[in-house]
């Protein structure tokens, strides 16, 4: 049997009595129901959202705290480690598919929708009857010029800098991994700190860019299909970078506390994979949203 109170490397660790999932469900429900209420203009929605968010944060600390404790105390054998790894890999795959939906929308818009609105192929009658004179060139906010005129963010300014930042951060996190493997804790923490700093700097520049777009370029979420795809793609990516940077911060503090060993550090690796994933998504964004 896999006793919850005695580590046994020969057995698969099966935890008992998990109080955190139900807390997570309550938090998630409060958060989302609160968001729905706010969207409908109910004032109480904000309170529910805040409460839900707080509950989720508590849940994350409680749940991960427990897992970290078990890990440090040697409850997990290599098979448990593999389960965690598989869980993380497939979670990242699901995230890839989430972004694929929005990339799909972008490609569909550029390759099919906009040309059809301009009268190409079987869109010829629609164009003649409804949208005569529409010039189907990307970027566009559609035949009704939804949201008014706008300018786009040039690729080779801040976005290029952000690309370099994220690529560098991919490098620094790899250096941290290397330091961990050879047991240099100080440089592990330093490389992690560099990665975290780069991550948050990226988010800062992105926020500046959004303010610039809204205030000076006239480019908003409401700027037709261009604004929709631009902000949804970069926005969801930015949220993921923020999340990744927070996770890296946690890992940094854990590393400073002496967690992780040269051959047992799934927590580190899982977050590093996540970081690389965020990195790769950005490369896709840079090419297809900004450059092309």
């Amino acid at each position: 049997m896999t006793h919850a109170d005695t580590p046994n490397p020969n057995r698969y660790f099966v935890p008992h009595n998990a109080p955190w999932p139900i807390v997570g469900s309550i938090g998630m429900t409060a958060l989302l129901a609160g968001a729905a209420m706010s969207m409908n203009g109910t004032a109480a929605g904000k309170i529910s959202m805040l409460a839900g968010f707080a509950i989720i944060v508590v849940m994350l600390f409680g749940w991960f705290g427990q897992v970290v404790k078990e890990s440090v105390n040697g409850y997990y054998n290599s098979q448990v480690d593999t389960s965690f790894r598989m869980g993380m890999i497939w979670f990242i795959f699901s995230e890839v598919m989430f972004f694929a939906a929005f990339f799909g929308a972008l490609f569909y818009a550029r390759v099919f929708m906009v040309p059809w609105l301009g009268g190409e192929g079987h869109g010829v009658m629609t164009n003649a009857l409804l949208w005569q004179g529409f010039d189907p060139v990307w970027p566009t906010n559609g035949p009704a010029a939804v949201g008014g005129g706008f300018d786009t963010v040039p690729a080779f300014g801040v976005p290029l800098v952000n690309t370099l930042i994220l690529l560098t951060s991919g490098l620094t996190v790899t250096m941290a991994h290397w330091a961990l493997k050879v047991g240099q804790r100080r440089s592990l923490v330093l490389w992690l700190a560099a990665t975290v700093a780069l991550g948050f700097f990226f988010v800062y520049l992105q926020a500046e860019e959004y303010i610039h777009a809204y205030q000076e370029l006239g480019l908003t979420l409401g700027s037709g299909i261009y604004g929709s795809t631009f902000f949804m793609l970069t926005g969801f990516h930015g949220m993921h970078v923020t999340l990744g940077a927070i996770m890296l911060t946690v890992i940094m503090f854990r590393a400073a506390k002496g967690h992780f060993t040269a051959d047992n550090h799934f927590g580190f690796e899982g977050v590093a994979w996540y970081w690389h994933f965020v990195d790769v998504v950005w490369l896709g964004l840079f090419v297809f949203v900004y450059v092309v």
Partner: protein
Amino acid sequence: MSSNTAAAHDHTHDHTHDDHHGAPKGLLRWVFTTNHKDIGTLYLVFSLLMFLIGGGMALIIRAELFQPGLQLVNPEFFNQMTTMHALVMIFGAVMPAFVGLANWMIPMMIGAPDMALPRMNNWSFWILPFAFTMLIGTLFMPSGGPAGGWTLYPPLSLQTGNSFAFVIFAIHMLGISSIMGAINVIATILNMRAPGMTLLRMPLFVWSWLITAFLLIAVMPVLAGAVTMLLTDRFFDTTFFSAAGGGDPVMFQHIFWFFGHPEVYIMILPAFGIISEIIPTFARKPLFGYTAMVYATASIAFLSFIVWAHHMFTVGMPLGAELFFMYATMVIAVPTGVKVFNWVSTMWRGAMTFETPMLFALAFVILFTIGGFSGLMLAIVPADFQYHDTYFVVAHFHYVLVTGAVFAIIAAAYYWLPKWTGNMYNERLGKIHFWWSVISVNVLFFPQHYLGLAGMPRRIPDYAVQFADYNMISSIGGFAFGLAQLLFAFIVWQCARGGVKATAQVWEGAKGLEWTLPSPAPYHTFDEPPKIDDSVVAHGDVAH
């Protein structure tokens, strides 16, 4: 084999002395549990509850359609019922039932102590009651629930009242739950098999779930993306689905069905797995063509990603796309045909007996095939121009989903109930349930083929008088079928409470690891990995 059974007995003995490991008492046991059997039970009970609620909605629909004209409910509410019925049945009844079966059976079939990620397993389940409270709760909001159909097509769905955001978020929660459940299944199958349980020795139910879990992780996030775009179109000024801003409502249909078609296979592949377990047991022969079954399942899963637009033939696509999706859809008939052929060949010259699980499995093979044929008819573009959005489509998907997926779930319940409860169900009542169901379900759905061919549109509370007779027949079948399922609920309840004690093997022809365990299966099983040799390998023995 006998040594395994003995080992399992030892453990039971141990557990009774160890208050950490017996089944804890009280309500909180179910809230905090990490045990795959407890969580399996939670899923299955929840699914039965949703099945009855969704069934109630269906009966409101059938009652209104009993006669032409508007009698019982107003059209707005009728539309809420068609929408909710589908959402509840798909996300609340069929999918959780399969996850429940996976939880119960996969660890026992591959010789694992539990699921790979037990805490997350708990969370996957415990999101569902919250999500459905939110979803079903919208019916009681002043604006009513969603009424634009489960497919949520814009622009219609964007006109939903205050319930809209709640529906979208409920769908997000269901997606999160499904993805976590699927990740757990994959990690369990890939990482937790007992030594010697090679991939090609796994029971087909496990194989079908491995592939289903992959489909789930691939497409549930796409649904999340689609409904997120709906949400921002409604509340945050985006124009993904509005032509004025350069968007296109048809794009929603593409994204939705990129999820939607694999989703229908998510609801049928585990059913295929169940049938592949049951038929060999009662035909007392190894499954015919085990590896062919595995490959067929994998090819169906692959093909399911490139056929989605067969739901959109009438929406205005370029001709080349219509042709591509027509042919790709028809290709799926090939691996599906392989499966049906193998089930029939398994029975060929078998020593068959017809206990309730086998009866449901046989009905599955025949009736699912009818649904497959009507699917082929719908796949023909010029024919679909006439059939689309008629009752013919309704008949098609109810044959594949009710006499397909639901019959397989019922068959699985009868097949494994003795293993779960330690008691045999009442065979006589089971047979009554079967014949009552199989007759009424055909009375319910077969006439809908004719209605559709004659042109009766779906999702309409009233109809022209020439459709009256078949609608009345269909409604009578509907109420009869609904009543039969109350009998099913009773049989399950009775079996859980007591009855003739089941043996470990339960069925004379049953093979596989789960049957080496005592009935009821102890709270913890396979804490020590069992020895796997050919005697305990299920029907997928590759040596055959």
